[in-house]
């Protein structure tokens, strides 16, 4: 179960290559990659702050919940911190399970947590200056689906 933060750009495909290798009883791997959007030409830079150690530990608690709840064989989470340019991956989540429903649902569940409640603080640097961003109503509603 890999849970890591990184301040460098990463290739989600390389992570999936590693994650999918050598599995004999896993029938299903779901992944999600979140990318920074250019937002129609505004040259936004996204800046994500974490609390190293604490952030991974909190994500690890939820990951353990997901593993039990969905009967996962394995999971991997890599999350960018620092400044992120449009088009760059922000987050990668992979889940491995016997069957596809569990893999999809666990991936969805983890993303809802990561987008709404994980210990990150998010700032947007745009043409009009910088502003701190809060989760959207939609993010909170998505998260509520699992409780």
């Amino acid at each position, binding site marked *: 179960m890999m849970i890591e933060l990184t301040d460098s750009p990463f290739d989600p495909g390389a992570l999936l290559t590693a994650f999918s290798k050598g599995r004999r009883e896993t029938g299903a791997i779901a992944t999600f990659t979140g990318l920074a959007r250019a937002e129609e030409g505004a040259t936004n830079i996204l800046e994500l702050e974490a609390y190293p150690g*604490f952030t991974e530990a909190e994500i690890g608690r939820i990951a353990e919940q997901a593993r039990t709840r969905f009967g996962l064989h394995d999971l991997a989470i890599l999350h960018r911190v620092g400044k992120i340019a449009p088009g760059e991956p922000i987050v990668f989540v992979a889940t491995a399970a016997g069957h596809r429903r569990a893999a999809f649902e666990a991936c969805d569940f983890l993303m809802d947590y990561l*987008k709404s409640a994980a210990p*990150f*603080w998010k700032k947007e640097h745009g043409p009009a200056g910088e502003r701190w961003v809060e989760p959207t109503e939609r993010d909170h509603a998505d998260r509520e689906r699992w409780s």
Partner: protein
Amino acid sequence: MARVLLFGPLRDVAGWRERQIDSPSLSALRALLTDEDAALGEALAGKGVQVAIDQALVRGEAALTAASEVAFLPPMSGG
């Protein structure tokens, strides 16, 4: 000297991110920071601001030692 960390918008309010501060308890630390900077004191008492001591969330009062790491965590925004 406890290590005091501010995250997210709190850092912008205070103008610093990390300081070493000598204080016997969390409440004494809050009082000290508020004396120094009323805006920061208000922000630290704001809705949804949590406190972690040595990377574990705490509620209410707590003792501090010279080795304590105290983090003020504004509402988490997710990634």
